[in-house]
């Protein structure tokens, strides 16, 4: 079964990526913390002309501690925070027919994926959209907007939920939660340290004897590199996070089609989401990369190309629809039910 093999490959790839991101971030934090210490240390050594005084690397320890604690908290609380930021309410006892249908559809897709039923959330927002979040299948949450419930029929709703279930099954939700936590820490730390530097300037300043020599040069190089990382870190980490999320949309489309065996329904759901686009009132930037379609309506998501590759959180909608229609065509062909017209 090729579909099954693809799934395991993807899960393995996501696990590898999760580890790679963790390692990268640990290295990055180490540099952010201990690199600062190194610069100060070298500067001090230059001042004392080779006599190296012992210095406790306090920047390193403070940064590492803050990073570890913040990352852990947002890893545990991230999914709830995302839901909270969109004003989503959990559907425990569905009231209307539409809500009942939504819960039914989520249950159906959980059965199809062989996973526990995720918690269902509704967002009061006219922009048709949906997203999934969580750390694994047991903590997964699927949220849809009221706008989506209004424009799609049952089949299309099923297709959208299947796409989100695909994110859950492929472990995309875990990777995205982790990345969001780590990127958040970087932004906070980078801002905080920038402010600290401005406040207590002159860490490297030459009080006392005039310093010179190769050690001071080294200190300056380390310090400049350190400063550049500090400034660029938030941008680079965001761009990396976007690339990760973009890759995953095509795959979730495919997994969704595999669950429903109905790629055409997802294609028409995406078309409806595209045409019924309304200004979003609830989905903020923090949740945008999780959504089935970019809620912020950024033009960059519509294009293929190098800039779009760098900045878009989603692949171009037209491309996704074309691929899904291709799948639907293959399915019809395989079943020998091609329309003759």
């Amino acid at each position, binding site marked *: *079964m090729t*579909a*099954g093999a693809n799934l395991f490959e993807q899960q393995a790839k996501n696990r590898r990526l999760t580890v790679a991101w963790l390692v990268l971030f640990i290295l990055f934090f180490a540099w952010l913390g201990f690199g600062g210490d190194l610069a100060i240390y070298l500067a001090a050594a230059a001042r004392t002309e080779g006599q190296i005084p012992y210095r406790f690397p306090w920047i390193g320890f403070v940064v590492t501690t803050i990073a570890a604690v913040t990352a852990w908290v947002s890893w545990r609380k991230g999914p709830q925070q995302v839901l909270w930021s969109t004003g989503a309410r959990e559907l425990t006892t569905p009231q209307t*027919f*539409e809500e*009942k*249908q939504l819960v*039914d*559809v989520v*249950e*159906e*897709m959980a*059965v*199809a*994926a*062989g996973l526990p039923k995720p918690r269902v959330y509704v967002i009061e927002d006219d922009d048709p959209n949906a997203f999934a979040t969580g750390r694994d299948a047991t903590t997964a949450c699927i949220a849809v907007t009221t706008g989506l419930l209004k424009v799609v*029929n*049952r*089949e299309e709703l*099923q297709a959208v939920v299947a796409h989100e279930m695909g994110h859950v099954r492929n472990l995309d939700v875990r990777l995205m939660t982790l990345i969001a936590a780590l990127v958040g820490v970087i932004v906070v730390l980078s801002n905080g340290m920038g402010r600290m530097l401005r406040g207590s300037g002159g860490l490297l300043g030459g009080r006392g004897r005039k310093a010179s020599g190769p050690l001071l040069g080294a200190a300056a190089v380390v310090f400049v590199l350190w400063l550049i990382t500090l400034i660029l870190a938030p941008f680079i980490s965001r761009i990396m996070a976007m690339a990760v999320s973009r890759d995953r949309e095509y795959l979730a489309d495919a997994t969704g089609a595999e*669950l429903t*065996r109905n790629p055409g329904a997802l294609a028409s759901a995406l078309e409806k989401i595209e045409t019924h686009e309304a200004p979003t009132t609830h989905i903020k930037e923090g949740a945008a990369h999780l959504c089935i379609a970019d809620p912020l309506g950024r033009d960059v998501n519509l294009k293929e190309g190098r800039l779009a590759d760098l900045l878009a959180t989603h692949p171009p909608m037209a491309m996704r629809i074309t691929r899904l229609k291709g799948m639907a065509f293959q399915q019809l062909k395989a079943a020998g039910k091609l329309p003759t017209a």
Partner: protein
Amino acid sequence: MGPILLLIIIVVIAVWVVSAYNGLISLKNQTVNAWKQIDVQLKRRHDLIPNLVNTVKGSMEFEKDTLQAVVDARSKAMASGGGGAAGVKETAAAEGALTGALAKLFVVMERYPDLKSSQNVRDLQEELSSTENKIAFARQLYNDVATSYNTKQQQFPTNLVAGLAKAEIAELWEIEDKAEREVPAVDLSLKKPQG
């Protein structure tokens, strides 16, 4: 050098046997579990049907045959169910007949506008068609898992440990009834009104 090489070969083979054996057992349990998921949904459908029949009975005096067919198919399906993976074919046939009878009832119900507009009937119909979908998806999952289980135990070299793991070919739940294949078309009635 000789004994060490021999030892390494023995260890490698032992590790492979253990992992192949465990892989087969894991797939076997997944197959059994997937079958149980179908069973859960089938039971749910059996429980829902009397409710539906009682609700529509009054308004559908003239469709006694259709209703009776559903009731009969239900009791037949209940009698054949719960046989475990051994009786797949039998259960599949009886449940397929029930699906067909229900689909017919839904079509007939379309002719009674007051029935369709009743909130109670609408809810029941949604619940039943959702259960139908769950049965179909549970069956899809079962067939997928059972297929990879079957493939694994037949493929070389895993087939060498298949006997050790007491692996047997799991029967797939095939749709034989042609009427049942066409059920999704009937579901069109359940689409939400547009606009």
